[in-house]
């Protein structure tokens, strides 16, 4: 893509149009390059030894190794889940390498391999000087390890801990031990158990009492090496009266093999704490024939443990060949609030089965779900959500809205909401619609001289507005662009 852009600038005016057309035609997955960097990897295969080796490489304490092994043993006893509306080719867990890291390992940010920095520059992730301007603290995870975290000093002054998970296990063992697995237990589900056994890195965030995190925190995940899986683990703890906004982005090179990504994210919000978690997921989706792409199996769960706490998930899912992801809120504290805003776009042969769970336990708890699905090409896009009101959740309220937009005749858009209510004081509402971009809307735009692709992207943008509004500004811009690129060639 960069090359094409340069070309556009160089060529003379008369042929510019052609070059632009060419550029548009060539535009595909922009993050699909590979960084040629030496790396150390564990050989493919999974056994207790792999788990031990992994733990040893990371210099983890005994309790962590045992924790991993317990998860691994449990994983062996579990069947692969098959309830999602996904058609998944069998996964050979023995052919995956469970650890890959740039050879010279993570050091201080100033010493990071320039090639790596270049990679993140290319992806538009500010790791160095630009970071200062952007004002977002970034933890960059490359394959299995964190390669650098920015703004550490500023954050430390505020008392905020923001570091890689490996570092947290070493430096803040007690905190990690207290909270790790307390939201997503090791045996929670098949992929969470696998992650618990082999997670290699991720981010750890701790916001102490009464602290408002002075800047947006962000983790950028990049899969680079071939035949590796990425298994990151993120843990965010917000103590009483604290606030944090966290962003997450991800990309991977274009390859013909399917690569496995199984992450676990745990959020803990204590009394009156607020966590805002935003994701722009842009893993490589595979090509138009469904070859290659990331298998994305993610367990994300927030626990509103304290009264009056709030957890808000916002996600824009445009990548991955397969997405299996249900960011959830356990509303334990009285009057706690859970929110879920999602845009999931599938094109070509992508499959997404995504949604949320809102478990109301405390009194006066509230949740809101806004899910927008866009299907194009031959893709399949399902919303699957659960709203559960337990007996003690007096006065609980939920409002759910799911809308699907179909672009093309061969795609599928599905809605599977589950509502389970055991409290007569609760109110649960669900609405869903499915429609296509209407000819009237298109005609209106076309008659005003707006091209078909622009018109579609405007209409899609309007359809998603409710969700984009929830994203931090830079992310909203990125998400919008991403949708445009992902939808290319969907009409006409």
């Amino acid at each position, binding site marked *: 893509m960069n090359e094409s852009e340069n070309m556009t600038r160089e060529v003379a005016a008369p042929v510019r149009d052609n070059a632009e057309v060419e550029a548009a035609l060539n535009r595909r997955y922009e993050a699909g390059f590979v960084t040629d960097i030496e790396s150390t990897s564990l050989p493919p295969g999974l056994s207790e030894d792999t788990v031990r080796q992994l733990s040893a490489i990371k210099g983890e304490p005994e309790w962590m190794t045992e924790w991993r092994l317990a998860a691994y043993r449990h994983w062996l006893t579990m069947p692969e889940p098959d*309830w999602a509306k996904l058609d998944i080719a069998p996964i050979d867990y023995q052919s995956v390498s469970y650890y890959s890291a740039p050879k010279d390992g993570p050091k201080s940010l100033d010493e990071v391999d320039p090639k790596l920095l270049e990679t993140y520059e290319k992806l538009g992730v500010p790791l160095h000087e630009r970071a200062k301007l952007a004002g977002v603290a970034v933890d960059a995870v490359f394959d299995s390890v964190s390669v650098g975290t920015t703004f550490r000093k500023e954050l430390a002054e505020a008392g905020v801990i923001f570091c890689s998970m490996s570092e947290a296990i070493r430096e803040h063992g007690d905190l990690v031990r207290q909270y790790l697995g307390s939201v997503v237990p090791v045996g929670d589900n098949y992929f969470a158990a696998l992650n618990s056994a082999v997670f290699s890195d991720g981010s750890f965030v701790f916001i102490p009492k009464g602290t408002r995190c002075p800047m947006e925190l962000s983790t950028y995940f990049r899969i680079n090496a071939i035949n590796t899986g990425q298994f990151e683990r993120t843990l965010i703890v917000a103590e009483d009266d604290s606030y944090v906004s966290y962003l997450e982005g991800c990309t991977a090179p274009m390859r013909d093999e399917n690569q496995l990504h199984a992450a676990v994210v745990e959020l803990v919000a204590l009394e009156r704490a607020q966590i805002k978690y935003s994701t722009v997921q842009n893993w490589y989706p595979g090509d138009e024939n469904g070859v290659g792409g990331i298998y994305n199996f993610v367990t994300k769960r927030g626990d509103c443990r304290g009264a009056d706490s709030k957890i808000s998930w916002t996600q824009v899912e445009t990548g991955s060949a397969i997405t299996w992801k249900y960011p959830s809120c356990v509303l334990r504290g009285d009057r706690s609030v859970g929110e879920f805003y999602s845009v999931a776009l599938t094109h070509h042969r992508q499959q997404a089965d995504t949604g949320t769970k809102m478990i109301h336990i405390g009194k006066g708890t509230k949740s809101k779900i806004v899910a927008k699905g866009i299907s194009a090409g031959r893709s399949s896009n399902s919303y699957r959500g659960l709203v559960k*009101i337990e*007996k003690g959740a007096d006065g609980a309220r939920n409002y759910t809205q799911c809308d*699907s937009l*179909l*672009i*093309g*005749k*061969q*795609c*599928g*858009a*599905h*809605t*599977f*909401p*589950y*509502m*389970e*209510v*055991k*409290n*007569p*004081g*609760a*109110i*649960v*509402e*669900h*609405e*869903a*619609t*499915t*429609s*296509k971009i209407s000819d009237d809307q298109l005609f209106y735009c076309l008659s005003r001289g707006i091209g078909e692709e622009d018109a579609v992207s405007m209409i899609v943008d309007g359809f998603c507005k409710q969700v984009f509004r929830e994203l931090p500004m830079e992310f909203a811009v990125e998400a919008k662009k991403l949708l445009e690129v992902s939808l290319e060639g969907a009409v006409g």
Partner: protein
Amino acid sequence: MTNAPSPFVRAALDAAAGIPATGIAWLDAARRENLDSFAADGLPEGRSEAWKYTPLRALAQRALALADRGAAGALAVDATRIALPGVDGDRVVFVDGTYRADLSTATTAGVTLLPLAGALAQNPEPLRFALANRYRHGAADAFAHLNAALAVDGLVLRVDDGVEIARPVHVVHVSSGGQADTAWHVRLLLDIGKAASVDVVEHYVTLGDAAQLGTVVTDISVREHGRLGLVVLQDASTATTLVRRTHARLDADATATVHVLELGGALVRHELQADVNGDRARFDSRGVFALSGRQHIDTQLEVRHQARDTASEALWRGIADGRSRGVFRGAIVVAEGADGTDASLSNKNLLLSGQAEIDTKPELEIYADEVKAAHGATIGQLDERSLFYLRSRGIPLSQARSLLTLAFCRAALESLPNEALREHLGDLLVANLPTGPAAD
């Protein structure tokens, strides 16, 4: 699946051993196959998505013998017990699954009403498609397998092409409630001819208190431009377990409208499935359940749009009080190529007690893009402001509650054209409505 067959499965196998062969090779083979599937898969367990909210552990432990056909054939049934206002056409009565010629009538021209055995004796071939059907969903289809293997009685109703029947046909399923731990099975086949029109009232009553199981599988075919109005009134005793499957196929320009009122039953499951196969066909369904005590009612609606410009509307209401549990799944499936589909579903529920539970799952599965599909579902309480409005006009709280509850449910019955029957269903509903929390 399970190591040892449950008492329920063992008893069903014993019962099957006592059923004589019909001599029709394909039918005997189909019965045997269904029995084998049932024996192999057993009853669905908790992991089965289709039975997620309806556990059958207690039922699996019950060994149910077939209800005694001799006693069923001789049982005196008071006609006033089964009569319904506004339903004055032909009547077909089954007692514990046994066809009762003495209580049944077949006088209307253009309509064929035959007991299953009679229809098979005349010409089995037209029934082959329905009776040799294979159900492919393993344990989730357990009761369909069971019914296919054990239902020796049933009804074949045919309406000739172009015939419009004004007076509703009354199909009554009487559970004797006489002997505990017995089961009965009935198979119904409704074939509505081209441009024919008929109304059918399917009516469930119980006489005694004994706990029985009944299974009914109904296959409906509505031909081009045909029309069926089906009303299901389920007023069984609270000791009765009923598992019903109603499957309708609609050809081009056909319409079917189903109204369901579920009042009684201990454990009731109704699977209402429609394949809207012909262009411009329409399937509408409306239903109400009003539960109290320990009742458990599970409605599984699935409407599959397979042709162009088809339509469906579903409007369902539920009320759960006491320790009851109401389950609803409403799926709209729009197949590839079914452009022009217009489908909607609304499911609203009132949860009146802290021990009751409502589980609802409206689903959309859409594979075509020229489609309008929408669904909405709510679980909540009566509107406080409406209550306040009524009370401010001097209506006592308890009365205000029942008025609003009734209004809530009636929406589903209002569209029933048979006025006398509609009034009667409304009265039954009022009599069955839970009173809700006591007045302040």
